[in-house]
């Protein structure tokens, strides 16, 4: 029961009303949305671990080292060639895209400024981030695979094209965070522009550039479509970059999930999925740790 207050004292107690009920309801709905997001995340991770852990860890390290059974009906590991393929293709793509992207961003921010050329390039880089990955795959097919055949390098080219605009964007962001007075201090000591960029600006922006690039690498490692058209579907180890078809984890997952109805193949697909997820999570985690510990604060 509402107690009576002495006269003259204002009553500030909360009053139940439909307005506050409505607000609380909306907050509940928002929290429900959060749960709605958590569920698929947990569900997917759970499935991946549930179905994949068995085959990946049972006869460790067989899954990582054995070749892919050519006859997909056959049960058992492994995905060795696919892991090597993913590392090879993604690694090469990184070696192409990151230097190009960083240098390109350096031009845009340090030399290009607001000029017409820089604006066009920035705009086109934004356009490029929206290119569907399958379009990139077909493009590489037409320009590389047709002439040079399936190879890890073709896949690397396709992934590099996907990574390039992302690296440019995130690097330019990092360069913007380097304060102008740091450049001025270097100029005042008689350093040339290129010297200043190489010895002062880039080292200062480096942690951010590294974490941005790691995130781009993580995305590339998970890409499937471009590789379908460039890499092929080998089952044996192929450490050669330029010759012969290769394979990758993402391609294997796709192939095993669609084409065959054999449980063994499906198991391997889940195992490959688990491996891929672990790889991308590792890359992302490293990127986050880097940002947290080393990057320039805004």
């Amino acid at each position, binding site marked *: 029961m509402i107690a009576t207050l002495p006269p003259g004292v204002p009553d500030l107690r909360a009053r139940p009303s439909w*307005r506050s009920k*409505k607000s609380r309801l909306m907050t509940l*709905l*928002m929290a429900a949305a*959060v749960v709605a*997001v*958590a569920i*698929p*995340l947990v569900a*997917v991770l759970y*499935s*991946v671990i549930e*179905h994949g852990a068995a085959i990946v860890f049972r006869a460790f390290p067989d899954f990582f080292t054995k070749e892919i059974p050519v006859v997909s009906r056959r049960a058992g590991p492994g995905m060795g060639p696919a892991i090597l393929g993913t590392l090879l293709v993604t690694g090469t793509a990184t070696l192409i895209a990151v*230097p*190009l992207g960083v240098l*390109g*961003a*350096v*031009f*845009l921010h*340090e*030399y290009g400024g607001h000029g017409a050329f820089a604006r066009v*390039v920035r705009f*086109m880089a*934004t*356009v*490029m981030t*929206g*290119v*569907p*990955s*399958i379009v990139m795959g*077909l*493009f590489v097919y*037409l*320009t590389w695979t047709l002439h040079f055949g399936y190879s890890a390098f073709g896949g690397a080219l396709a992934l590099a094209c996907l990574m*390039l605009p992302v690296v440019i964007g995130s690097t330019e962001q990092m360069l913007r965070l380097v304060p102008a007075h740091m450049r001025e201090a270097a100029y005042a000591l008689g350093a*040339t*522009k*290129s010297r200043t*960029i*190489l010895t002062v600006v880039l080292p200062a922006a480096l942690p951010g550039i590294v974490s941005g690039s790691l995130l781009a690498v*993580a995305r590339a*490692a*998970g890409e*499937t*479509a471009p590789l*379908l058209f460039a890499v092929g579907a080998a089952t044996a180890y192929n450490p050669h970059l330029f010759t012969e078809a290769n394979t990758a984890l*993402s391609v294997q*997952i*796709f192939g095993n*999930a*669609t084409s065959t109805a054999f449980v063994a193949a*499906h198991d391997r697909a889940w195992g490959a*999925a688990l491996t*891929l*997820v672990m790889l*991308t*999570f590792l890359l*992302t985690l490293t990127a986050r740790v880097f940002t947290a510990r080393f990057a320039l604060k805004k």
Partner: protein
Amino acid sequence: MIDLRGKVQHADTAFRWIALAAAATVLVVLGLIAFTMTDRSLPVLERMGLRFFTSSRWSAPEGEFGAAAFIFGTLYTATIAVVIAVPVSLGVALFITQAAPPWLKKPMVYMIDLLAVVPSVVFGLWGAFVLSQHFGLGRSFLTAGIILAIMIIPIITSLAREVIETTPNTDKEAALALGATRWEMIRAAVLPHSKGGIVGAVMLGLGRAMGETIAAALVIGSALGQISANPFKPGNSMPAVIANEWGEADELHKSALIALAVTLFVITIVVNLAATAIVQRSMRRSRGG
């Protein structure tokens, strides 16, 4: 006399040119893409003309390539994805920025980031085996829509969050000072301010959903020629068709698939550009006050 001429700095000039060349790679690659892909689409376009876009008859052996069903499929699944994703993303973004206790914010942001990192093919795998088989949803527009929704939620959420956080504190405090509840404050101060940016974020999500190949390919059902509004029917979308049919396609068929890719490219570019323009305009407006 003082000599202020200095040595000629070859290295300095060379560096500038190298950096310029690197930046120009973007233009070169995009130009090549546009050129080679359009070039290779010509055969099928010559054969089919505008019917390529209007007919829904797609039959490789007969040389008939009408892409209408796939264009429809792409747009339809993307729409389903957006319809599912937008309320969820908005809810999450609002919760994180307005209602969550501080200790909960970071873990939730991490959770969204984790969702973004999972490769699309893994989502496709899960969708194919768990969603469609286990839960009996089968391969259909709806299943594809759900998977796509899960994949675009992180994008929409993080962009919406950024826009919402630019709401000036004074606006929010003004509402609260008048006795508004939290939801009323959101409706009065946050949403009007962030409207433009949220629309842009949604469009970016839409663009991504349309271009997403693999997840869709695994669960959409690969049905031919179905233009139907029934979401439970199996259907097809442009990227899925390309991925599934490429392996055994002859020259004309390949040309058709490439034409499909170009169509997809153009649609997604237009949507993405419009979205970027909207987001940038709303951010600029809010920063300028």
